[in-house]
């Protein structure tokens, strides 16, 4: 049991690191703005999983931090068996804000496509230079 838990713990950290590398590669090297946006959403989801993972504890059973009042001595039980509410609260709002910001970026990309006819970052820069905007 101990080895399996340690394995899961290290595996999640490794996968988060690989995800981060992959998404930063996508943001930096992919010329298409749409693919850059997709990589950005992968990066933000990776960060959310990392934040949730910080609040995760290896106890069984793990319960949500909700007080029901049904069990006597429930607060002590929750202090031992509940997951950390703070990372969950941060991610809860973060996902919705991220959705709105992604929608804003998507609006910008669609507008760039309408005006320049391309979502390729290199071609966009070229068409801007041709129009005299540096």
């Amino acid at each position: 049991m101990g080895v399996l838990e340690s394995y899961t713990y290290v595996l999640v950290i490794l996968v988060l690191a690989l995800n981060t590398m992959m998404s930063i590669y996508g943001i930096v090297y992919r010329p298409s703005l749409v693919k850059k946006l997709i990589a950005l959403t992968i990066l933000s989801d990776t960060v959310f999983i990392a934040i949730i993972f910080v609040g995760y504890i290896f106890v069984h059973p793990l319960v949500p931090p909700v007080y029901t009042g049904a069990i006597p001595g429930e607060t002590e039980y929750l202090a031992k068996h509940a997951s950390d509410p703070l990372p969950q609260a941060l991610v809860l709002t973060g996902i919705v804000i991220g959705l709105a910001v992604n929608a804003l970026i998507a609006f910008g990309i669609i507008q760039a496509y309408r005006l320049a006819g391309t979502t390729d970052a290199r071609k966009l820069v070229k068409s801007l230079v041709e129009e005299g905007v540096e």
Partner: protein
Amino acid sequence: MRSGYVAMALVVIAALLPLVFVSVVPVDVPRALRELGKYYVLNTIKDSASPEAVAAVVWDYRGLDTIYETVVLYLAIVGGLAIFRISREVAKRAIIGLTVLTQTATKVIALLIATISSAIALHGHLTPGGGFPGGSALAITSMLIVPVFSVYSLLERGITSTRLIAVRGLALTALGLVALLPVIRGLEIVTNQRFYPAGLGPFVISGSISMYNLFEFFAVASGFTAVAIYLSIPEELYRAELGVGGA
């Protein structure tokens, strides 16, 4: 084919690497809450009258942060809609949707989503959920209606982006008022239990938490519905507005 084998080999290596690592280096996994998390879990019912610690953190302990995040949400959607503004009326067109079968199924599912999303928002202070996820879930209804019935069916029923933005403005104003009201008694901004009642008759409302959830529900739902409507207005209309031809 070759790259497929390489990818498979890489996945196997990535899966085995942690096993090698933990067999060499002993790794301690966390088994107890941090002191901060423990404080929230133990004191949420006393401090904010909310049985759910996440809602208490979102709207009470870190309430001011969430108000500012709501402002970010507001500005992001305003920025998007400012890029996509259209000055002319959207001309009415014949509604061409999917088949009757799909439309009937969508009607049932849309009703279910609307019900469940309001339950998520109104129970936000008691069970996991709240205004943010509830509002996002309600916005899914319109994103489902647009492809199945076309955007004109929404516009014909008076769900226009102008009205949605008005609803969102009103909801955010109400949210700001709930946050500001304690100031008239000389308390800090975003005060909960020292100003608002914990219960209303037989109902647990957890002070201001349920009000924040309700207003945030309307703000998020109307904001994302407005985004969905703007994204599904035909491309020619925007091109005519910008004065660019077909690309």
